């Protein structure tokens, strides 16, 4: 047999030589061009805007510098907008699926990066009916009509280091230009890789208040929450939520957790610390579901998670987990949505009032009776009963009445 007319042995030697040479040559890492498809030829232009049929202000302009310094800065456009080939773009071709894998390699494993696992967790969660695919610039209005949040609703393409965090970052790493920059030059490195790595040194990407803000963007919106319908497990039908759900953000704010975080004391628990403490923190489930972190059977473990109420798992403290962290009775009744019906009678405030009622009646009634029927003395401002003793012993002066008497006697 021959290969191109050369003997088999010789061809084998040649192939081995080629393989050896190619292995021994320093393989140059593929240069990562952030815009391989030339999308920024147009999309980097400022002012590519129009108003669509529904009146929505649409913009095709992308702030290039922001994009490269943002979370998706190393992801080429077509990794998300996969099918775009032509201009004008067909809307369908630009649809984004957040659960798809992209061409960026996850550095530790060398595998294509993907949000698939997060999307999977999210799809099983209470918010799972929200959009994780089919996202385009044009369907934001349609999406806004729904109740469940989509990926982009909570996660826009934000900077690695937010503008408010930048002074802190610069103060901590004022040497990056000289130290890191001697090898890693250029703004892209500093903005993207530098930001990605060094961000971890000044804290996680989001703190607990950022988490809460994300939840409150929807949950503090009473009007939006009033539109939510939840499935009744017994009847299987969807029903409008009640005040407890609508006011969940308000009731949380009255708890110690909420109040601690409000004053920037990070010991308080954020919404997802209790509702999605594990996994990718997207798996919020209804309280009734067995796997839910807020299910009665799991509450002890949830409360006892790292750095929190460790004693909650002790059987002697079993009542601790029954503390209602969304107690609607903590919200002032002046709130428009708070109920003003018989459901309020079950409140602990009412129970406490019942317990204290006899004392209130006795003391209040006694005071009233004394006011009406009690002996009134002119010039006496202190209590008749024990008033003199109070003046003599506590204030250290002679009561007026006694002083007058002594004066007359004298």
């Amino acid at each position, binding site marked *: 047999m021959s290969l191109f007319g050369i003997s088999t042995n010789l061809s084998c030697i040649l192939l081995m030589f080629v393989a050896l040479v190619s292995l021994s040559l320093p393989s140059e890492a593929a240069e990562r061009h952030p815009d391989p*498809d030339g999308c920024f030829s147009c999309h980097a232009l400022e002012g590519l805007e*129009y108003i669509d049929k529904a009146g929505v202000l649409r913009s095709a302009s992308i702030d290039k*510098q922001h994009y490269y310094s943002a979370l998706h800065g190393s992801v080429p456009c077509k990794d998300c907008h996969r099918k775009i080939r032509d201009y004008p773009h067909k809307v369908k071709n630009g649809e984004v699926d957040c659960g798809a894998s992209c061409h960026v390699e996850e550095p530790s494993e060398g595998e294509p990066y993907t949000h698939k696992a997060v999307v999977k967790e999210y799809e099983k969660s209470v918010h799972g009916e929200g959009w994780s695919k089919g996202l385009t610039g044009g369907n934001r209005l349609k999406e806004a009509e729904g109740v469940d949040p989509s990926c982009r609703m909570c996660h826009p393409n934000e900077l690695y280091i937010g503008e408010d965090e930048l002074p802190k970052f610069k103060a901590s790493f004022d040497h990056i230009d000289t130290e890191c920059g001697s090898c890693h030059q*250029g*703004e892209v490195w500093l903005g993207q890789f530098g930001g990605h790595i060094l961000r971890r040194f000044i804290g996680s990407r989001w703190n607990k208040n950022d988490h809460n803000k994300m939840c409150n963007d929807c949950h503090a919106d009473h009007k939006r929450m009033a539109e939510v319908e939840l499935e009744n497990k017994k009847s299987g039908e969807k029903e409008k939520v009640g005040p407890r759900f609508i006011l969940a953000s308000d009731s949380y704010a009255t708890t110690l957790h909420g109040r601690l975080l409000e004053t920037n004391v990070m010991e308080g628990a954020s919404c997802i610390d209790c509702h999605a403490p594990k996994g990718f923190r997207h798996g919020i489930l209804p309280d009734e579901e067995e796997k839910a972190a807020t299910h009665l059977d799991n509450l002890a473990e949830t409360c006892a998670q790292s750095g929190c109420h460790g004693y909650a798992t002790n059987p002697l403290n079993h009542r601790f987990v029954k503390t209602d962290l969304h107690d609607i009775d903590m919200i002032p009744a002046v709130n428009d949505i708070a109920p003003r019906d018989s459901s309020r009678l079950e409140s602990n405030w009412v129970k406490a009032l019942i317990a204290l009622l006899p004392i209130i009646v006795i003391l209040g009634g006694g005071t009233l009776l004394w006011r009406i029927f009690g002996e009134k003395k002119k010039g006496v401002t202190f209590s008749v009963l024990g008033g003199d003793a109070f003046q003599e012993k506590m204030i250290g002066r002679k009561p007026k009445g006694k002083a007058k008497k002594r004066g007359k006697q004298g």
Partner: protein
Amino acid sequence: MNKKCRVHPSHGHKRHALLMICLFAFALTLFVSPVMAKPLYQEQVEQSEVSDKALKKSLKQVKEHKEIKVVDDLSVPPFHKRAVLQTTKKQPFCMTCHLSLPHRKNERSRTFMNMHSRYIACETCHFIPKGAALEYRWLAYDGVDAGKLIAPRRAVEVSVETPAKSERKHTAQFKKREPLAPQPGARISPFYNDVPVLLFKETPFAKDIEKKWEDADETQRAEIKAQLHAPLKKKGAACKECHGKRTPMIDFERLGASATQLKAIQNNIVARFFERFKKEDERIRIDKLL
């Protein structure tokens, strides 16, 4: 003592001559003063005659018109960061009816046309009268000198040093070009005899039209609309009028463009790409752009 003040006869002649000179100078000023002249667009609107066909078309448009409420506060934010919509202190008369982003229908060109409206007056593309040589200059729409002619930015050629390979790879993309506009909000606008051709919203003519429109019924509105659009062209100047020709419609050098900027305008890849389209509904592969 009571003295009578007498005027010498020769002094009287001098005074008379001086008065005549002053009057003549004043009349001359009135004649040549650009301040007093009407904007050419207004002049043409007032002179134009509307055909029955144009009137019929106008009436149809008035009847079919649907008010558009701009939505920009959706609960779902845009994924990519974008700039806020630009507004200027002075607003053109066109915006009395048209949206600030007026191009909406043509899927292919609307965004690019609206982008141009950031630095080009509507009349630059849509008002090209026959027999009147227009000059294109910078007109301030914003700032303290809003509504005034402004001088171009001095063209500066920046010598760019060749950066190191690594630096070139990473930073070249962020080098911002020197803007051609002398100040934010300035627009290239047509001038006729040193007078801006266009009108702003607050001019008496514009206000008068606005008032008439409010009081008018559909037929009257159609007449007003047709009259206002009579001197205008619906289809503006083609891209190549500025981006392709060696002698473009606009003298960019006079507007302060450097040789590099001029080259960038005339050899614009997007404009060249647009020239490839032959049919209205055609789609072309993007790689042809590169």
